[in-house]
């Protein structure tokens, strides 16, 4: 189904992976007029533990509301990767739902052990990059959103910019947009190097 894109963001509680998923779905619905849904793990139950959010974006109404062929996976933590990377990890029988050519983006400082390595993996010290460029790791989720949308083009640049602005707490708009741009620029460079076709909806 080429008009349906599935993404999964994962981390540990507090890293902002779930918020990133919400922002992405909002970009699709509010600014691109697409059909979209996001379903997060129930955070009240897992605070401090591994969390994930699944996002589905489609040009048609979404029938089955869960992921079955994930095109893009992001992991901010080893624990999250081990639990939610939907490859053939033992114990992952419910989440064996990655496409063969899924793009996997990990924080290279935090995810180092690749059980059942994915075909296409991007390793980048996302948190350190946010710390170095923006002074705080809190922007790493938005930085990652820049990379995700820059590579996948699952939503328009304008839509993700507007969605980030909509969610940014007062006074942090500029820093958040800067974080997004760092992500965009990395994605652009990466795409030029690897000549990956975007998976536009």
């Amino acid at each position, binding site marked *: 189904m080429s008009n349906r894109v599935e993404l999964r963001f994962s981390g540990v509680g507090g890293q902002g992976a779930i918020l990133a998923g*919400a922002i992405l*779905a*909002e970009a*699709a*619905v*509010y600014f691109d*007029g*697409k*059909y*979209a*849904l*996001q*379903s*997060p793990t*129930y955070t*009240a*139950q897992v605070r401090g533990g591994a969390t994930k959010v699944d996002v589905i974006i489609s040009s048609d109404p*979404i*029938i*089955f*509301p*869960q992921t*079955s062929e994930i095109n893009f996976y992001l992991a901010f933590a080893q624990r999250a990767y081990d639990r939610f990377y939907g490859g053939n990890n033992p114990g992952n029988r*419910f989440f064996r739902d990655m496409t063969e050519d899924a793009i996997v983006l990990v924080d290279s400082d935090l995810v180092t052990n690749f059980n059942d390595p994915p075909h296409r993996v991007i390793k980048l010290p996302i948190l350190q990059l946010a710390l170095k460029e923006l002074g705080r790791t809190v922007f790493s989720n938005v930085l990652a959103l820049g990379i995700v949308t820059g590579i996948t083009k699952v939503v328009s640049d304008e839509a993700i910019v507007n969605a980030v602005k909509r969610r940014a707490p007062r006074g942090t708009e500029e820093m958040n947009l800067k974080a997004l741009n760092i992500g965009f620029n990395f994605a652009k460079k990466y795409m030029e190097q690897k000549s990956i076709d975007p998976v536009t909806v």
Partner: protein
Amino acid sequence: MSKRMELYSGNELVAEAAIAAGCRFFGGYPITPSSEIAERMSKFLPQVGGRFIQMEDEIASMGAIIGASLAGEKSMTATSGPGFSLKQENLGFAMIAEVPCVIVNVMRGGPSTGLPTAPSQSDVMQARWGTHGDHPVIALAPSYMREIFDETVRAFNLAEKYRMPVILLLDEVIAHLHEGVALPESDEIEIVNRKKPTVSREEYEPYADTKDHVPPMANFFEGYRYHVTGLSHNPKGLPSTDFEVVHAIQVRRQKKITEHLDDILKWEERSMEDAEIAIIAYGSIGRSATDAVEHLRAEGVKIGLFRPLTLWPFPEKRVAEIARQVKRIFVPEMNLGQLVLEVERMAKGDAEVIGINQVGGVMIRPREIVSRVKEVA
């Protein structure tokens, strides 16, 4: 698309729709995976002049909404399996006293405290027979976001129209899912209010038979004095053990449903015209089944979908017709086989009925339905 979409979770939509339907009282006790309904009601009810009470427990919550409804407010509570068990006694009271109200049960895995944050459809039979005694039941089970809104409104309308509690069954998948949905404008929403007495205070009989078998309901404090009890009662509402009186009122309550099936029953059918195989599914699994039917149709399998939105009363006549048309019916459910029993009862051997059951707290996926259908074919 005429109207812009907005992102809502299923639980948020229940609250939105309840307020749109005129609900002005919520009594509840938070329980996962339904808590966001109470949370949102606590925020928005006061803004429209309504009242929210977090009660001391599930039992009292059910009592509170019965009281509020008798006083004239459209009222609702929301819970999950463990709370639904506790509410059964008062639910029976609302049924015998014929008090309109809406009970939302966001189903999770059971029995007992079970699986708090995982989906299930295992309270389907409890919705029908959870409280003791013969009683009519209306239970609705939406699958999509817009349906959650529409069926919540319909739950209030049916409660008011037939003067009885209505159960809205959701499951954790659609309750916690945040999805883009276009909601109706407020002038597009049909709202039904309870029938009021037109006779004098002296002549008023709160439980007398009428043409539609639904007696008009006077609200407390309007001057119509009457008795409300959980005991079998006469048309005045006073306790009665008279055989004829008790029998007649029981039968009348049943007729509220059996004589208005066309109004209460609702379902969706897809590709049923030439189907040789049918899938009957509801709630979130209705979405898996729809996907499976589309997939199998694309492969040339003559398969169709029957997706009831009204689970109780069960759409008996239509299911019996389908059983005569097809050779096999699959019933995927996140339980160990509940609605399938009704399908078997109506199929009467005309079609082979096969359940697809999963209770681990994980949704049944389209591919699991597809492979089961192919396996049997």
